């Protein structure tokens, strides 16, 4: 392309020479025609009458202050035109003239961030970067919510996004991968993969290890308040998690306030004992032993009534240790998160294969609490200047599986996945369909789940059924045409059978009420290679 008609090298030289211009030598600024209006710009064309010209160039080669004739200078090689075609003027009243509407080419695909795909209509490259979109005021928060049916390549899009973001220095953390979809990508990024499951890695829901370490570092550096805040937070997060797991363990029957107080008192007691990371087993033993301070803290009159009240709770905890949950939560964390890793994945596919929704739900909750707690601690450290500041992009795939374990979990999940630092954390929540959220046990849960979508700055939609498109548009305004486009991606248009899935790799990116950006994800050969192996190892495409 570059060896065009006349070549471009002349221009390039000239272009670079521009840098050497004596642009600052303006001293006795000569009074020029429009000088006052002009910005101090070297590109400024109006400061013509500087006195000296290099001798080598003939004066005639340059325009002086005389004005050129309309058709150009009347001299050899001046490019003067020989004729001007005036074109044809068509008259029309503006009510009709506006029908030749020129503003339909569509443009303005974001060019900041990871190139995630090509615009389906005008073929522009579409880039995505939740953090810088917030910086540039394109969205109000970095959250991303993705709704797409299985098989349309949503994990490929998420993988592209986290790969790119990791190249920009953000840390992808995939929390609770049930397929598993992401281990190979995370490994390719040099990240850490924790495989949770019976006989594999254990995550202790009461683990405060990394947070305690962080708060000690903060305290040592003199940030007492920050350290206290972090510890209080860690305590709350662990309690919320234990309560949630207990609730899931007993099939959704809520944990009573009294029981919650007992759990709180136990965790506090174990913390005060100086136990670095107490386990569920420790809590059970403690409740059995019922030391006076715990009895008092639980507002029980004596040990007898305490025992009576804690019976169900003890049974629940024991269920977590011996029943179907055996091997999931019993024991200290075996493979803690490496905070220096460029990417982190917690794979719970081994547990997911059991198919027991209760276990999947509680495992996901545990993973979220653990992961977000650690990130929160790390961010507190970087805020204090003890660690370099990093952005995190968390992927919560199939999040509904965690939420439907028991009523009220949406709230808990909200608490667990919240980070105190407002900046530096983007969550990518992925679900197959809004129906998954609609299947939550109570109306409050459903409303709160819809809130998760509303609060996400960006929503990514894949092919979906007309009914689903309609219900999405209740949460996120979609025009009729957008709905039709999404619906057209849902299934092949013919029975021929050799057609590729029409919605494969196609997504619509919606930010607020702006018109959606329909994109086609184009995978690079190196990515295809990597994702294919995932496909063999895992299930989803």
């Amino acid at each position, binding site marked *: 392309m570059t060896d065009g008609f006349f070549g471009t090298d002349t221009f390039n030289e000239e272009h*670079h020479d521009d840098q050497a211009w004596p642009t600052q030598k303006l001293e006795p600024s000569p009074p020029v025609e429009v000088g006052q209006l002009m910005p101090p710009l070297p590109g400024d064309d109006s400061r013509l009458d500087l006195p000296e010209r290099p001798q080598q160039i003939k004066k005639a*080669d340059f325009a002086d202050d005389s004005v050129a004739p309309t058709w150009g200078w009347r001299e050899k090689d001046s490019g003067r035109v020989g004729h001007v075609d*005036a074109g*044809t003027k*068509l008259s029309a009243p503006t009510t009709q003239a506006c029908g030749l*509407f020129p503003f339909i080419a569509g443009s303005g695909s974001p060019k900041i961030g990871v190139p995630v795909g090509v615009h389906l209509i005008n073929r522009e490259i579409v880039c995505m970067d939740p953090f810088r979109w917030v910086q540039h005021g394109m969205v109000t928060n970095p959250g991303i919510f993705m709704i797409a049916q299985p098989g349309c390549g949503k994990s490929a899009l998420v993988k592209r996004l986290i790969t790119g973001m990791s190249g920009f220095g953000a840390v992808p953390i995939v929390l609770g991968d049930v397929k598993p979809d992401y281990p190979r990508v995370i490994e390719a990024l040099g990240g850490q993969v924790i495989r949770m499951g019976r006989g594999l890695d254990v995550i202790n829901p009461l683990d405060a290890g990394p947070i305690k370490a962080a708060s000690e570092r903060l305290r040592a550096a003199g940030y007492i308040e920050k350290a206290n805040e972090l510890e209080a937070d860690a305590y709350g997060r662990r309690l919320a998690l234990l309560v949630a797991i207990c609730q899931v363990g007993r099939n959704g029957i809520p944990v009573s306030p009294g029981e919650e107080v007992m759990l709180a008192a136990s965790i506090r007691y174990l913390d005060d004992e100086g136990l670095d990371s107490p386990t569920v087993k420790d809590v059970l033993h403690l409740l059995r032993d019922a030391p006076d301070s715990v009895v008092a803290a639980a507002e029980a009159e004596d040990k007898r009534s305490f025992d009576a009240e804690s019976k169900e709770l003890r049974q629940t905890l024991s269920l977590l240790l011996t029943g179907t949950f055996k091997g999931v939560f019993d024991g200290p964390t075996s493979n803690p998160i490496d905070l220096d890793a460029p990417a982190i994945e917690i794979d719970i596919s081994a547990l997911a294969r059991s198919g027991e929704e209760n276990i999947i739900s509680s495992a996901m909750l545990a993973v979220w609490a653990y992961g977000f707690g650690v990130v929160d601690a790390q961010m507190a450290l970087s805020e204090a200047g003890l660690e370099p500041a990093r952005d995190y992009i968390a992927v919560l795939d199939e999040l509904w599986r965690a939420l439907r374990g028991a009523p009220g979990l949406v709230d808990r999940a909200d608490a667990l996945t919240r980070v105190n630092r407002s900046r530096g954390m983007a969550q990518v929540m992925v679900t197959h369909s809004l129906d998954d959220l609609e299947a939550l046990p109570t109306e409050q849960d459903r409303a709160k789940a819809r809130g998760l979508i509303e609060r996400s700055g960006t929503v990514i939609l894949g092919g979906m059924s007309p009914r689903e498109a309609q219900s999405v548009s209740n949460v996120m305004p979609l025009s009729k045409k957008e709905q039709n486009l999404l619906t057209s991606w849902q299934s092949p248009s013919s029975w021929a059978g050799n057609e590729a899935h029409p919605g494969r790799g196609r997504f619509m990116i919606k930010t607020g009420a702006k018109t959606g950006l329909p994109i086609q994800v184009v995978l690079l050969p190196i990515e295809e290679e990597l994702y294919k192996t995932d496909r063999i190892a895992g299930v989803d495409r």
Partner: protein
Amino acid sequence: MTEQALYSGWRVKKGLGFFGYSQTETIALGASLFLIFVIAGNNPSTLFVTGPLFLVVALMLTKFGGLSSFDRLRREFGFYSARKREFLNYRTKQAKGKPLAFGERLKLPGLLAPTKLLGRRDGLSEWGIVWDQSNDFLTTTFICNSQSPQLADDDVFNIWVAQWHHFMAALASEPQIEYVTVTVESASEGGATVTENLRRSLVPTASVHAYDVLTSLGNLGVDQASYVETRISITFNPNKGPARKKDIQGKIAEVSRLLYGLESRLSTCGLSAIHRASPSDLAARMKISFDPAAKDSIVDGMLKGVTPLRWSQAGPNVAMEERNHFLHDSGASVSWVWNDGPRSPVPATILGPLVNPGPYPKKITLIYEPSDPAAVSRKLEQERTALDAKRLLLNQSPQNETQRQKLDREFATMAAQEEARGAGFGDLSLFVTVTAPHESLLDDARTDIKSRAAQAKINLREATCSQAAIFYAGLSAGINPAHKINKGFF
């Protein structure tokens, strides 16, 4: 769903012209015919001379394919004589590798020669004004993004279109505004913007995989993606304003005052991210038009903050105007003008096939010239009466009136009605320029444009012998060929 609105009714003003001639031509021919007969009455033998002469003139004025033979001859002659005097080629006078001295200004080619680029700083932003010294017009340009109507609901889209009508209609009340030029430029994405953004964002600690993916994605752009930009240039004639300022500063201040209102009105037409083009934006875009192969290095330079190009440097290094194409630095371009718009009622998305990106970089330029509202109602009424009179004159009953004449008359009536109801009135011209990287690809590019024009129901005519002039119309430099038909002898 709202019903799709349809539009029609653009027509060439004919007045009382007969047999396809314009009103003036009809009068002139009629008068000469009368004269011929008067002379022949005295001396019938003169008919042997005047008769054929008249026929030749009449034939010369008859339009074939939108142009009369007279027009064709005139342009061929103009082109031939300019070529003979070696005007048509252009060579920059800047010595190779030698920088311009500060303040030095090169001579720009052709219609660009009388233009200068001025800059003005308002608050933090800085915007450029092209000053055409040959007619003292000032042009400023807005760069904006248009939202895709493909995904907007019909009623929303209809509102955008209606707002565009309001925008054009309101121009009539600003006498300083000569015309508005909308240029939609599309090209394949060189990937420079994306690559440069990626290069800046990549961290040194990135893993090999992330690095590989991101760098390959930057390169992916070249043949996969495209770039579309919509520019709206507003050309002012400051000498027409109520406050006639003598000096250029006063004139620019006057223009600046008007721009705020225009900017906010444009934002309701389905446009977003509207901003005024800075002097460096304008110069860089012009340079890229002449030297498309240098696009990446120019964009890259702009992103890196290299000293911006001067306007006089933004012209081509070398250019050659041929009869049917224009060669410039690293590109070869063909330009068209329209002969006629869509005849049937069309939806407002009709220009879609024309403006959407194609295999070659192209510019679609639509110029709207508002007519003086005071004169227009009189004119329209005259026109309508003329057409009715013509029908009576030829004793055409509605049965033997040709369909085209009938349509034309209907359109004229409709125009008069719409005008009476308060619509603005004006003239539209459309110019198309496509640029190929090499002369040999021009036929391919021509085929592409022709098929797009056919889809858009627009009848295009190649701007023979005027390729350079039409090319300049797409540069957002405020050049309207209709205002440039006179050479200017001063």
